[in-house]
């Protein structure tokens, strides 16, 4: 075998660096070279406190999408959340979206519960049935101050 020369070692070095970078970028940085097919739906919540962009959307505990953007409807004072749902999943138009927490101090995510309707949500449609995030502090204060 030919002895490794300087160029080969440098080439190997750069290749290793490029491979590491692309692994981190693709796996963690959400850079997609192959666009995963998904369709957008919106949902309105009274409060989404703690939910972040990029949070997971789950159905029956399986990840089916992500939160793509969060904004405030300033006339209704409601939070408008845009979700990207995988094309593989069809949602009934009476599906319920609720904000949950994984563990006690874990991240917030959106849990979808399928409905019973025959109609399916079209891309750009809106989930009407929503359940806002549960605030542990509010529950505690309610319990303390209402029981008088």
């Amino acid at each position, binding site marked *: 075998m030919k002895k490794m020369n300087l160029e080969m070692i440098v080439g190997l*070095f750069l290749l290793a660096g490029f491979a590491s970078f692309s692994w981190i970028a693709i796996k963690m940085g959400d850079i997609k070279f192959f666009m995963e097919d998904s369709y957008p739906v919106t949902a309105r919540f009274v409060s989404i406190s703690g939910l972040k962009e990029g949070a997971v959307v789950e159905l029956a505990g399986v990840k089916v999408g992500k939160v793509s953007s969060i904004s405030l409807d300033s006339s209704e004072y409601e939070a408008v959340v845009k979700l990207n749902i995988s094309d593989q999943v069809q949602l009934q138009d009476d599906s319920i979206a609720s904000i949950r927490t994984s563990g006690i101090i874990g991240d917030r995510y959106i849990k979808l519960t399928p409905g019973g309707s025959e109609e399916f949500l079209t891309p750009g449609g809106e989930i009407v049935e929503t359940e806002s995030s549960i605030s542990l502090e509010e529950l505690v204060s309610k319990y303390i101050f209402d029981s008088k």
Partner: protein
Amino acid sequence: MRGMIEKTGREFLYLLETIGRMGIFFTTTLGNILRPPYHPYPVIRQVYLIGSRSVIVILVTGLFTGLVLGLQGYHNLKQFGSEELLGSAVALSLIQELGPVLTALMVIGRAGSAICAEIGIMRNSEQIDALECMAIDPYKYLIAPKFIAALISLPVLTFIFNIVGILGGYLAGVVLLGVAEGAYFQGMYDSVVWADIRLCLIKSLIFGLLIVWIATFKGYFLHLDRSGVFGAEGVSRITTDAVVLASVTILVWDYLIGSLILS
């Protein structure tokens, strides 16, 4: 009393002069990097010296940093019953902070000192003057390839460090302490975003620039150093100076970049 004021003034003027000289040194080098002709071979050689030769050190330090993070993180998170956050804790602290900083410190120790000593000795033995006599621009021939090579090598080394560190965290957390493998990796994929990776990249580029800037500057102007010590002692003094200054600068800039970008 008067002596003290004079001394303070002298110190200040010397500091001013040094900062100005560093600025001029940098712009001259930048001009030489941008001006043709371009010679790729010296750059490749410097990438070999700064980058490839540092890989072993980076692998070992990265692995053990990851192992320690996995071990410490596991025991701290266990108190809150949230061991499944280990993956994201390890990955975030590596990518945002430890990866760029520890890589930079290792490169200072391995390559920064070597660069400084090499140029210092060339200055000392009048090889740089000889280059000028032969109408070879020392900036173009000596300094510019080192700058480019450091800017290439640091990001590459940093990302190798990150990968090995994540692997070390995996070894400690998943293999030895029994965190679920899926939770480790999925937590990592979910919590690290592109902004973190960009921060890591920006930090490593700036650190690379700072290291090579300080190391080459100190060596190149060995003859103008205030201590006036020439010869072997001068080289040793200037190399120590460069290593200490570069390490401190890296840590200060790490904070500055972090506060600038995270805010």
